[in-house]
């Protein structure tokens, strides 16, 4: 299920549909013909999301990429019921989340959403209390609540001695982890992260992404990562969903998506630097698969090409 090509790069030829069948994946979230229009009936009417349909498979690591204005943030706010569709449906485990509008809060406990720069939403006196806010709203108390908080804190790398400090005494990076823990503590089935590494330096970015990968691997929950950076998405996800101007442009494994690099580039999106090198090499006549996206993979391709021999 891993999107990275440490080993033979050619294994990821199969399409998402074939993979789905092979691995018998279930859809945890189904988005059907979702449309959201702002300002209906006024001269400012505008569809932020138009007729989007796609599935999120249980346990996968999905990446969503698109420009500002592509509908990313409107889309993800539908997945946890913060926004209501103008038309279309969102199904969680097969059930329409708006079937019982009064119970929409329950959906938010199952689909956790972490916004950009989440550290600006901390408010409690201690880190512990802030992390406890979510599970407390779910009705958890006593030992169960304590367990949720401590586990979440451990998962994001917050030490026990930091639990009873004021969140405002911590550094920016630590505050962000507290905010992340606050959502993880609700133990949602799906965790949506909107640009979790925004503003972090390269080391901080890699650190946080490693944490998220560990969470995905250990808990086998579904993760949706929204990002601007093609490099970041490529190196972490199983599948990519590309948005453009309120629509879904394409979806597939990283290899499938980068094989259509020309379309991405004309849509104003970028491809990983490695892919651009590979494309250029292919143009210049080398027998390189232009859809590689990690340095290791390209290295392997080049060594194979030099030997003129068969791939691994």
């Amino acid at each position: 299920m891993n999107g990275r090509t440490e080993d033979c790069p050619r294994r990821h030829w199969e399409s998402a549909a074939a993979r789905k069948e092979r691995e018998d994946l279930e859809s945890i979230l189904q988005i059907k013909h979702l449309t959201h229009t702002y300002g209906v009936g006024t001269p400012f009417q505008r569809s932020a999301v138009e007729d989007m349909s796609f599935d999120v498979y249980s346990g996968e690591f999905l990446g969503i990429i698109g420009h500002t204005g592509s509908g990313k943030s409107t889309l993800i706010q539908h997945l946890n019921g913060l926004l209501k569709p103008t038309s279309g449906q969102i199904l969680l485990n097969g059930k329409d989340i708006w079937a019982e509008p009064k119970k929409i809060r329950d959906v938010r406990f199952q689909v956790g959403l972490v916004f950009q720069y989440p550290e600006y939403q901390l408010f409690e006196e201690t880190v512990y209390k802030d992390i406890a806010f979510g599970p407390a709203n779910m009705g958890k108390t006593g030992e169960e609540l304590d367990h949720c908080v401590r586990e979440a804190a451990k998962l994001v790398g917050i030490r026990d001695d930091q639990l009873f400090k004021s969140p405002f005494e911590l550094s920016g990076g630590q505050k962000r982890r507290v905010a992340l823990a606050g959502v993880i503590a609700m133990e949602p089935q799906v965790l949506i992260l909107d640009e979790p590494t925004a503003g972090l330096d390269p080391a901080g970015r890699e650190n946080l992404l490693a944490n998220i990968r560990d969470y995905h691997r250990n808990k086998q929950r579904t993760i949706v990562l929204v990002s601007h950076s093609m490099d970041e998405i490529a190196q972490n996800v199983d599948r990519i969903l590309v948005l453009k101007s309120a629509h879904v442009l394409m979806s597939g494994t990283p290899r499938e998506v980068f094989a259509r690099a020309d379309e991405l580039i004309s849509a104003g999106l970028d491809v990983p630097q490695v892919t651009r090198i590979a494309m250029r090499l292919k143009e210049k006549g080398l027998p390189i698969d232009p859809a590689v996206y990690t340095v290791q993979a390209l290295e392997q391709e080049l060594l194979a090409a030099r030997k003129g021999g068969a791939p691994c």
Partner: protein
Amino acid sequence: MESETTMATMIQTENLKYAYPTMEGEAQIFALQDVDLEIEQGSFVVVLGHNGSGKSTLAKTFNGVLLPAGGKVYVEGMDTADEHLLLGIRQRVGMVFQNPDNQIVANVVEEDIAFAPENLGVPSAEIRRRVDNALAAVGMSEFVRHAPHLLSGGQKQRIAIAGVIAMEPACIVLDEATAMLDPIGRQEVLSTIHRLNREKGMTVVLITHHMNEAEDADRVVVMDNGKVAMDGTPRQVFTRIEALRNTGLTVPDTVDLLDRLRKDGLDVPLDALTVEECADAIVHAVAVK
């Protein structure tokens, strides 16, 4: 050496030390330790470093926002510690900050850009001229009477840059000004400041942790633990792979690839930084079997 360089030196630091105020009993942590740096007029310098390396602190000493705890900072020969010179220094070295919203003072773009010349007591007609010129220089002339809060991040930062240019400074320091922007916004800001550097000879000091923003710089300074760890051209700095990794930064993918290929026995140079150069170098090496 002194008389020659003082003419062409925009900013100079000598044994610069800075420590943030601490609580009683806490040990002092020096954010900057003995920094000796000279920024030449007209150059485009990128200061790289991980969060906490002191790069932002360094930037803030350049126009007296932070005063040295030890050592000196001179702007065109003016000492930043002299409060009588501070206003003059700030007119010569402008600064653009990270958060696009928290630099905008007015409700209307032209009013915001006029803020600095108004503070300097520039006559009304001249302010008009400067506002229009500044907007043209950043490519935002059509937004002259727009509301700034409705603009995108990249547009807001360009307005911030225009607001600084309206002072007619000799140097602009951008303190992580691209950190909160999306790739499009980042590109807008970068091409704007490169154009200003090329066409108006403005000295640019760009503080960032994005490696790729340093590709087109004249000079790259890498900060680590409050000291200057590396200083040279992009080619010189980016090819010192181990040293870069030790300072908490990453190496560009092009250099990473070339390094691995070299270790695999391929005869490729290490300093082909851009995608084109890298690809060309590889093709050349592979063809020569």
